């Protein structure tokens, strides 16, 4: 509940994405656009990814970030945005999932 009234620029994903862009890097932005059940991160949360797979922020409690990073590198290459959906960890349906039992939808788009 420590709410700073100013942005934590060193950790803010959107500030970091802008910095990467200024450095000439290719960047993807992933955003939680929908949640069902007990999702770890609220709608609107961001994960930002560069073409080398570096990332900041989060879209879950660490459960699906790996998969999002992989997809984001694709999105950086193709320029085509993707909508990803993650549910409860289930080997038959998904390689990765949320152990909390929730479901999330993540929109991944290239910056620029």
């Amino acid at each position: 509940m420590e709410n700073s009234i100013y942005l934590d620029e060193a950790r803010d994903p959107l500030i970091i994405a802008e910095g990467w862009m200024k450095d000439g890097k290719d960047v993807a932005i992933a955003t939680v656009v929908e949640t069902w059940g007990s999702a770890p991160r609220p709608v609107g949360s961001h994960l930002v990814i560069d073409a080398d797979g570096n990332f900041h922020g989060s879209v879950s409690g660490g459960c699906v970030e790996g998969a999002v990073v992989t997809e984001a590198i694709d999105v950086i290459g193709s320029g085509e945005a993707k909508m990803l959906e993650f549910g409860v960890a289930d080997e038959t349906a998904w390689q990765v999932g949320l152990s909390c039992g929730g479901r999330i939808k993540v929109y991944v788009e290239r910056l620029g």
Partner: protein
Amino acid sequence: MDPYALKSLNVERRARRAAILVTDLGDGRDRIVREGDPVAGELGAAIAKAFRTGNSGSVEVEGRTFFLNAHLPQPRLVVIGAVHISQALAPMAKIAGYPVEIIDPRTAFATPDRFPDVALSAEWPEEVLKRQPLDSYTALAAVTHDPKIDDFALKAALDANCFYVGALGSRKTHAKRVERLLALGASADQIARIHAPIGLDIGAASPAEIAVAVLAQAIHAFRSRGLESKGAVA
């Protein structure tokens, strides 16, 4: 995401101004909407609601799905006066999600011993507010009873369009305050925004109960931003 949209969004966020990034999930096009920008129709209504609640989400309008990512500054509460009410108000407000800063030049009142874990300035409001200006995502409660300390801060809060401005004191005390604020150049409309006597009328008797009344009033003001015309704020 449009790089220009990202830059504009970060400018707003750094300046503690609210903005919403509206993304058409069909074609990926996006744009920034600032608080007060006119947007018509259903989308406009959804945007207005997102500014009020701070909640992000999708909305379907005429067969298109838009994602609204609401970026609201962290609201905060500045309390003028390191008094008994403030001792109760500071921890309550923090729990409710409104970080508190207390300002009181009287060093006997503004001691870390009386206010553990609170941002505390034993200085005149003039000095502190020069460093950390008030803004529309700040609430201000003036509770010293001392015009020398309260008046400047109240005028500054009205000028900065703080989402809540409250002042401790009876109606009689407030009538005199109104005269002084007019003399300082505040308009009658501005002065009408001051909640005085301070706090929702819940019959609060103790300092802690008054703190509850003040906090509830500030939250009400925050959550009804933009709705002033539809219902008077208590």
